């Protein structure tokens, strides 16, 4: 009897279709997001994450429609991120059926947007997605625009800042690990998890089920997010949960 560690499959979406970026550059098309969401729902995923990786203005309604159609059929928490600029975008996504909305570049550009969204909609639905890259031993910096743009902002300072501004959760992606299948950046994950008292979701680099375990036991994350190992059928959510349970981690077995 305790809070379960969450396993969150993430679907990278572009123009209404699922893709998975390898280091955010090469993409492969892998189907209909709603169908994938239903599969994950049936398989006992604890949450689902949609990331709009192109987030172009002309496809904004495509994303809203996708969120709405997913919320029609999946009765589990749904986080949506990518290109969220302000409270109006947050509201549109919540109205469409998202439970949490993640802010990334907009939060880096102006962290008061986190505060504004948290005040208006509650901290429980405001996630800040932090993309961090190692710059020297024990130091990570925030990168935006899919890892292309350096900001010079210290990742731990920024995590504390958005926590103080009312973020309810941090989605932490290591830009060094993402797409490598070599596991989370555990040192980064642990440093951020210990820097804030809100939940941290570890992301970037999962290549096998042991990586998920390490994210919790060593990285001290509250939840783990992965894309390709689930999406290309290498492992099921159910298999991942049994693997974590064997390692002594509390999970929800459905």
């Amino acid at each position, binding site marked *: *009897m305790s809070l379960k560690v969450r396993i969150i499959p993430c679907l990278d979406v572009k123009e209404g279709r699922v893709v998975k970026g390898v280091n955010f550059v090469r993409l492969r098309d892998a189907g209909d997001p709603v169908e994938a969401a239903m599969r994950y729902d049936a398989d006992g995923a604890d949450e689902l994450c949609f990331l709009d990786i192109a987030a172009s203005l002309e496809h904004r309604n495509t994303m809203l429609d996708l969120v709405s159609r997913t919320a029609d059929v999946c*009765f*589990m928490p749904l986080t949506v991120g990518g290109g969220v600029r302000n409270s109006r975008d947050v509201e549109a996504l919540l109205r469409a059926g998202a439970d949490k909305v993640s802010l990334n570049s907009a939060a880096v550009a102006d962290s008061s947007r986190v505060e504004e969204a948290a005040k208006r909609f509650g901290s429980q639905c405001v996630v800040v997605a932090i993309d961090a890259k190692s710059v020297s031993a024990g130091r990570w910096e925030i990168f935006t625009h899919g890892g292309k743009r350096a900001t010079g902002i210290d990742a731990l300072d920024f995590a504390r800042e958005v926590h103080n501004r009312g973020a309810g959760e941090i989605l932490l992606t290591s830009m060094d690990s993402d797409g490598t299948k070599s596991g989370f950046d555990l040192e980064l994950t642990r440093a951020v998890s210990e820097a804030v008292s809100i939940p941290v979701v570890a992301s970037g680099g999962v290549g096998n089920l042991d990586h998920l375990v390490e994210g919790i036991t060593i990285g001290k994350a509250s939840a783990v997010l992965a894309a390709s190992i689930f999406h290309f059928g290498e492992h099921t959510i159910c298999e991942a949960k049994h693997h974590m349970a064997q390692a002594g981690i509390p999970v929800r077995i459905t």
Partner: protein
Amino acid sequence: MRTVIVDYNSGNLHSAEKSARRMAAEAGAGDVILASEADIIAEADRIILPGVGAFADCRASLAAKGLDEAICHAVENRGIPFLGICVGMQLTAGFGLEHGCTKGFGWIPGKVVPIERFGNLKIPHMGWNSLRLIGTHPLFEGLGEGADVYFVHSYHLLPSQSGDCIAETDYGLPVTAAVASGNVAGTQFHPEKSQQAGLRILDNFFKWKPG
């Protein structure tokens, strides 16, 4: 028969609406509508009050549109079944302490207080946690002991009458998961986000005939 989900611009009503509609159809409990008009709410046969955000803000939004009086009329004078979800559940309390001290509906005597942080456990309490049922309430009929449901909150309701707490969950310390008294019930967790266990609870709500 008409169930009204109270729409007062408090977050995502989409999944509450979809899941309630589905379970109402299965239970043969008539239609489910979203409404933000006081007269429609006052005449409802069942009310679901969702709510996200802060206690004081939710209470103020309800009051601004006179919806609080409509809800009170239906619940207190007509005795219809009421289900509060998350902050909607917290609003059944005597008062809440989030963003100042604010009066609730007072159906469940007690107060809404911050979850006490235990050790290095994270706040908000976010994710799936098991229910420990206290007594037997029709809302939980057919639900196995220890069923996991989805929580996301930083405050919880501490009833002053222990009999009003019908389920707890463990987050280092006990956290109130559900309350009930007479025709009023509330869940701190989100049944509309809790997959099969949550759908079962909604189904039970539609079949519930209090008193």
